[in-house]
């Protein structure tokens, strides 16, 4: 177990080090997320007032779109110079590589979401910070659910021809339950009278979803990546 975590941490450190040199993925994903929220606000905010309930939807759609962008490039560096084969040939637990990549994606999305939440709260006048801890839990669980599936699919499609198009095609239908739960949970929190009981139901469902799908991803990563 300790070795597993060590390997995962090694992968995370490697990605962080490479990323810190040119910050390409971070900056482009952040910029994309900002543009996304702005575009949505042009569509849904009329005369200074947002359409009712649009804030929660916009928040999660932006996370989904930015997440897909980030995931599409999660394994990009390993595509060149047969780096992936080198990684897979290392005498380590393959799922540890998956966990390392997943943590990297989660860190990136955490930064994106921090910015997006502030922007949505501001542009859509949504009281997102009223129940900050609930929102944080919701966002964490939802992002883990989305990213766990996405990291696996991204790895799966690495050597596939039409991977740029196939990733969203595969990812969105499977993660729509996550988005529904996230949006409904957020909506329950931002209402004039927040429904915390309902929010707790969504949080529990998301937790259950995460357990199932992270386990499934860990289980299938090895056979799917083997030649």
């Amino acid at each position, binding site marked *: 177990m300790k070795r597993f975590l060590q390997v995962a941490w090694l992968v995370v450190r490697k990605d962080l080090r490479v990323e810190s040199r040119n910050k390409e993925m971070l900056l482009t994903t952040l910029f994309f997320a900002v543009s996304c929220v702005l575009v949505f606000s042009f569509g849904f905010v009329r005369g200074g007032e947002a359409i009712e309930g649009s804030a929660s939807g916009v928040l999660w759609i932006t996370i989904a779109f930015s997440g897909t962008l980030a995931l599409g490039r999660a394994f990009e560096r390993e595509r060149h110079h047969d780096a992936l084969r080198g990684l897979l040939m290392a005498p380590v637990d393959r799922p540890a590589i998956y966990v390392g990549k997943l943590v990297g994606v989660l860190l990136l999305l955490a930064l994106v979401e921090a910015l997006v939440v502030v922007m949505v709260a501001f542009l859509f006048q949504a009281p997102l910070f009223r129940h900050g801890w609930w929102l944080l839990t919701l966002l964490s669980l939802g992002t883990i659910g989305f990213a766990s599936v996405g990291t696996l699919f991204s790895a799966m499609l690495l050597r*596939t*021809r*039409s991977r740029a198009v196939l990733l969203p095609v595969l990812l969105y239908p*499977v993660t729509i*339950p996550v988005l529904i739960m996230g949006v409904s949970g957020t909506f329950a929190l931002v209402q004039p009278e927040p429904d915390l009981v309902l929010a707790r139901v969504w949080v529990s*469902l998301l937790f259950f979803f995460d357990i199932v*799908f992270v386990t499934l991803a860990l289980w*299938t990563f090895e056979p799917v990546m083997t030649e």
Partner: protein
Amino acid sequence: MSRRLFPWLIGLSLVFFVVAPILIVRAPLEQEMGLIQKIFYFHFSAWMAMYLGICVLGISSALFLFRRKPAVDRLAVSAAEAAILFGLMGLITGPIWAVKSWGVWWNWDARTTIALILELILVAYLLLRSYGGPGSDRLAAGLGMFAMANLPFLYISTNIWRTIHPPTSVVPTLPVDFGIPLWWSFAGFIVLCLALLTARVRLEEQRATLDRLYLALEDE
């Protein structure tokens, strides 16, 4: 094996489908919904057949991913197509029923939404198999397992989320007069699903034989 099974299965399903309308006509009319409720017998059965297809897909995907037997992969792709077919039946008969009894074609209620999502996942599965290039059978197997994992969420959704869809407890407490045509149609759809699976598996078997033959020809 599929050659022997198919005539029996298709014959049996024909028997079911010929008798079913008679049973459905003789079933009593429902108090609130009247005549249109009779779609229920085929609508419910189509969804059950879809679930069967998705279960077969999930299990054969798992088996293929971990055991790599080509026969199991053939079963997986056949199950995906059958599930899409029955899902389509459910997605078409559902709104036809809904427009009469609820007044709207589509209302984004939890269960209908997730049923649509499952259909999308299955189409994505077929797209991956068609355009994924070499090795896509394994990738699709991974996706197939995710499709199966989504099933419990579909079932739980009706009971936990607020919805105007009839709750799942309707079927177990169904009075006998409604029950007979229902379970008859259900059996008919299951047998039809199995018949379609055998036919489709046969197609994949022949394709595999053809590929082997072409490879043998190239070697000469």
